């Protein structure tokens, strides 16, 4: 790695020498300020360019160049047209940037072309703010360290701004982490102020000026790189957005060589473990809930969460500290309230959600975002602030028939600057929401129906086998028994009515109604006994009921007896009333009958219970 970059550098210098001075166009950079921030693993370059058109023709294209070894690692580039100075500076427009073919430029230079907001005519000036983020440009050196050694990295840059245009004045400041600085290239006008390293200002530089510098310093930042990150965002119209993120994280700093001693790591974590990182901090959206953190082999219990109304912070600790070159894989998942992310516009719905990983200072080499829309979504379109690779898939989840449409977005080399919102537009009718509950309902319905059919239907193969016939007969006997029972119950109810009429009589003294009640009961009982006869006959004739029929007969006889007794009692009482005899007299007269009636009633109850238990 290191060697190849040195070769690159040489090639670049050679190329620049060959190019000599022919001007690229008539533009002149009157002032260039560059600030490089290397406090994290990403080298973030901010440039303020003041562009002046000194030629005669108006220019609408502006060319940005980087040395190839930087250009290859360019993760993020944005050019903003701004106005004003210092605090009053305000951005006007984001300008579109595209990778351009290098016409007549050597391979060792990457070229980007910026289209200006309006053509720059003669003598006009324009201020551009360029932000570029580079990954992998902080090279660990040495490449392998032991547990106790500090983590040193190296940055290669040019003290002079590489540009196809002439530069009138330029300066560079490098913000280093607040730690040891091993060495840096000393040129004229080089100053080290605290942790800021300053080169320049340099005046009147020719196009393609280049003066390489190397800074070697200690970095305490976590070189956490997700080799692959799959974010699955599942939108459910039942009120939840479920985010699941699968991380393949590796420590891209200097590799650990030799032993890992837990004793040293525990007893003297600094410096004996300074090159490792233990935590990652994920800043989740507010109101994130049901957060989990696990991996292939189960839940990881070492995580902490803090939340307030602005954000939810999840401090995740991998199972082991990550030293240089160590890897781990884990999954975090959380639910978000749908109302915060789903909006409607012009008859369409759209999900507005951030693209990158919520973990801060994490570089993702390959990011795959899968947005799973509800089953039945149509007319799907995506808008993103930068270019991504798009495709569509189908995912099957619980109770899906057609599957859910999945929008897959892929992007390589993602840095925190890419954490911008993307919008997925789609059409979805609310009726589709009901399909899953309906499916469940119909599933259970079918289950119950089959159960009912199974219990009702006759599945025996041989309809003439003796056991089958016996079973049929037995069923018939049971049915008859049930009928007998119900008739007896009706008789008993009639008896109760009779008794009730007697009670009414004692209350009102209305003999006529009482008699009428008796008459109706009498006829009812007669009808019932008529009904009972064929049933009894069947039971007697049926062979399989032979052990029951005596009991049933007994029951019927007892019932008859009870009937007679009751009638007798009734007659006695009514007669007593007609004769206007005293209540005590009547009671005395029916006392013996009453006792028998109670005894009979009890016996009938017993018999009924017995039959019930068959």
């Amino acid at each position: 790695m290191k060697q190849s970059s040195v070769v690159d550098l040489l090639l670049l210098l050679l190329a620049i020498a060959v190019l000599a001075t022919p001007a690229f166009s008539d533009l002149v950079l009157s002032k260039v300020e560059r600030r490089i921030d290397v406090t994290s693993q990403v080298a973030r370059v901010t440039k303020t360019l003041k562009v002046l058109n000194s030629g005669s023709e108006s220019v609408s294209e502006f060319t940005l160049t980087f040395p190839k070894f930087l250009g290859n690692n360019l993760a993020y580039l944005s050019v903003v047209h701004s106005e004003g100075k210092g605090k009053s500076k305000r951005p006007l427009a984001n300008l579109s940037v595209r990778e351009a073919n290098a016409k007549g430029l050597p391979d060792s230079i990457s070229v980007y072309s910026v289209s200006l907001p309006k053509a720059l005519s003669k003598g006009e000036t324009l201020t551009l703010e360029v932000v570029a983020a580079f990954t992998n440009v902080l090279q660990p050196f040495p490449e392998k360290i032991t547990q106790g050694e500090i983590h040193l990295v190296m940055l290669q840059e040019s003290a002079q701004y590489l540009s196809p245009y002439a530069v009138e004045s330029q300066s560079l400041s490098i913000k280093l982490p607040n730690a040891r600085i091993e060495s840096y290239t000393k040129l004229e006008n080089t100053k080290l102020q605290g942790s800021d390293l300053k080169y320049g200002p340099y005046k009147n530089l020719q196009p393609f000026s280049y003066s390489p510098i190397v800074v070697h310093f200690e970095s305490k930042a976590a070189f956490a790189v997700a080799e692959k990150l799959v974010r699955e965002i599942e939108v459910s119209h039942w009120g939840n957005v479920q985010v699941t993120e699968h991380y393949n994280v590796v420590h891209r700093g200097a590799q650990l060589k030799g032993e890992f001693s837990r004793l040293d790591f525990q007893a003297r974590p600094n410096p004996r473990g300074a090159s490792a990182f233990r935590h990652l901090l994920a800043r989740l959206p507010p109101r994130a809930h049901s957060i989990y953190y696990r991996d292939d082999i189960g839940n990881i219990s070492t995580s902490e969460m803090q939340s307030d109304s602005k954000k939810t912070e999840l401090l995740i600790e991998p199972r082991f500290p990550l030293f240089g070159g160590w890897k781990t894989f884990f999954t975090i998942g959380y639910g978000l309230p749908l109302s915060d992310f789903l909006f409607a516009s012009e008859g369409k719905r759209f999900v507005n959600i951030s693209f990158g990983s919520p973990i801060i200072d994490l570089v993702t080499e390959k990011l795959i975002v899968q947005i799973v829309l509800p089953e039945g979504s149509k007319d799907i379109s995506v808008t993103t602030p930068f270019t991504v690779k798009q495709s569509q898939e189908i995912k099957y989840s619980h109770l899906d028939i057609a599957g859910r449409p999945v929008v897959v977005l892929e992007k390589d080399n993602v840095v925190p600057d890419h954490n911008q919102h993307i919008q997925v537009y789609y059409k979805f009718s609310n009726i589709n929401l009901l399909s899953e509950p309906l499916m469940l309902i119909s599933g259970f319905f079918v289950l119950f129906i089959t159960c009912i059919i199974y219990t009702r239907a006759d599945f025996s193969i041989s309809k003439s086998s003796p056991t089958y016939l016996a079973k049929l007969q037995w069923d018939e006997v049971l049915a008859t028994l049930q009928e007998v029972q119900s008739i007896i119950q009706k008789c008993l109810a009639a008896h109760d009515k009779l008794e009730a009429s007697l009670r009414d009589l004692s209350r009102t003294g209305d003999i006529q109604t009482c008699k009428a009640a008796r008459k109706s009961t009498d006829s009812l009982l007669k009808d019932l006994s008529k009904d009972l006869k064929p049933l009894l006959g069947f039971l007697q004739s049926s062979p399989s009921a032979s052990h029951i029929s005596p009991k049933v007969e007994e029951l019927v006889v007892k019932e008859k007896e009870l009937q007679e007794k009751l009638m007798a009692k009734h007659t006695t009482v009514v007669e007593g009333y007609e004769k206007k005899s005293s209540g005590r007299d009547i009671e005395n007269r029916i006392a013996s009958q009453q006792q028998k009636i109670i005894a009979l009633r009890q016996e009938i109850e017993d018999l009924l219970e017995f039959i019930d238990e068959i």
Partner: protein
Amino acid sequence: MGGKTEPAKSESMATATTRSPDLINSSFFSFKSLKLKTKQQELLLRISILGLVYILAFIARLFSVLRYESMIHEFDPYFNYRTTLFLTEKGFYEFWNWFDSESWYPLGRIIGGTLYPGLMVTAALIYWALRFLRFFVHIREVCVLTAPFFASNTTLVAYFFGKEIWDTGAGLVAAVLIAICPGYISRSVAGSYDNEAVAIFALLLTFYLFVKAVNTGSLAWALGSAFGYFYMVSAWGGYVFIINLVPLYVLVLLITGRYSMRLYIAYNCMYILGMLLAMQIRFVGFQHVQSGEHMGAMGVFLLMQVFYFLDWVKYQLNDTKLFQTFLRITVTSAILVGGIALGVGTASGYISPWTGRFYSLLDPTYAKDHIPIIASVSEHQPTAWSSFMFDYHILLFLFPAGLYFCFKRLSDATIFIVMYGLTSLYFAGVMVRLILVATPAVCLISAIAVSATVKNLTSLLRTKQKVSQTGSTKGAGSSKASSKVTLDQSQPFQKNGAIALLVGVFYLLSRYAIHCTWVTSEAYSSPSIVLAARGAHGNRIIFDDYREAYYWLRQNTPTDAKIMSWWDYGYQITAMGNRTVIVDNNTWNNTHIATVGRAMSSYEDEAYDIMRSLDVNYVLVVFGGVTGYSSDDINKFLWMVRIGGGVFPVIKEPDYLVNGEFRVDKGASPKMLNCLMYKLCYYRFGELTTEYGKPPGYDRARGVEIGNKDIKLEHLEEAYTTSNWIVRIYRVKPPTNRL
């Protein structure tokens, strides 16, 4: 639910509610006609009780998920999980033909031919069925919940079994008892994805179907039991218990003169079909006709034919004298032929002799003397009284009471359950893990005791009420009549006594429920891969070191790295670490394990040669000296020495002992202080202060200061040690260049 297949003649349960005696109020007439009849009420009650028991059995086993997480427990389940994963990903044929090169390096293992596939196939079928029904669950969840699901099913089988041998009441009680019995829960909590999880279900099902077949003489039930047996064979090696208990039972029936056509049909069908089906399992193969353990079944089968033949001859010959002679000749010749066949078979090696495991079951001291690898497994130890009490609680004394009831109402079915109970209880005494096999029998027999007692007591109460009410002398049923006889000559306090006894029974049962819940939540729900302890302030501390180490292996070692560890951790390393191991929990090759044992107990340079010859890249040891975790490798070390010494006589146990005592402090033997295991466990431990007020290098698991604090490693280096030092991993350095 099973309620709908109820035959109509079932007796009502003792506790079923009777109808309200208040019939005078006629305004309730319409309501009453809608009211369910007693029988229907009873059916409803029974189904709802069974439903609740079904759910109870399931949720009682979810403690582990609540306390920890939805994860696979212990050691063997990790292998089962790994194979199930393979099965669901690659399909059945790939699984069946799987040669696993990740274990037993460099030998490898033919997985398809050396496992019981029942469990994995069951889980995969459930998984596929759920996917078919559009429930996209993870296979891990299916595996975790397989054991509780089958435990629930077992309660249903227990109900039907109880109904078959006694009555529905006993069935219900048996279902409840087995649902929460700790002896069963210990091996069927959520996550305990082991063969036993489905095997107990299969075992009980086979027994139930067989008893049903014997009771009815129906071919269909016998066929069912053959299939149950097949499932059992496919699921667990414990099927040997069935294939020996059933013939033994048949033999007992023959001897007690209970031979019948029903028995003939049931046994023949079950044995022949079951045997043929069992041969389809590759791991079992032709053992049914070739191994000594299965010969009993075959002998009984032949005896059965002789019996039938004699029966027929007796029917043909009217002359008893002639028959007596014929009987003598036939029996003698049959025994002679059988004996000769057995002798020739054994001598020629066609019939293999009994295996060590089988011997160690019959003779508890056998393993200790001959096969240290069997004796070294903690679950193969003889059972202590306390664990019986722990696992059975009140069942321990309900069991004899149930036996009394069984003997009082002796039938084919009760003879079976008595034999099952007694034999399995003996085996449970020999090996701790076999408590599991005895549990269903103990629950069933205890259920008979509970049900019969409660039934008698309640009928006593109910009859007395009736008598006092009506003064009638007529009984409603025969059982009531019989109890009335006792009532007539009763003491005045009988009713109160019955109430007191009932209260006592319910008190006992509630104590049982409390005990079971407590045991389940406290003792049997730990996954043993995650250790939990209470901190100084009563907070819960979790030691997740195993997974930390395995995950480190998985992520940060080359994919072809070979890991050497003691065999206990083999399955876990392959499943969670996804790396090749030298030995694992499938202890099929004693020599290989002994080689590892030898390496662990040799000096470092000798061990290095062994490790080089086995291509070992990493060595993993488990060490509890920092946390006080006592089941670590130092405490297991003597078994390594014994097993290693069993094959390689260079390793001698006395070298590691001082006056017959195993020590790690200054008084330890020099060989002990310098062997590989000691060095790997205590490397740089001498610099660590583990406990306040104790010198550095104080081993908390053994409570001593270690004897060798200045350990230098020459051929290995520390690669990773987990945060609580429980797992330590060392890298084997490549050989140094020769100068």
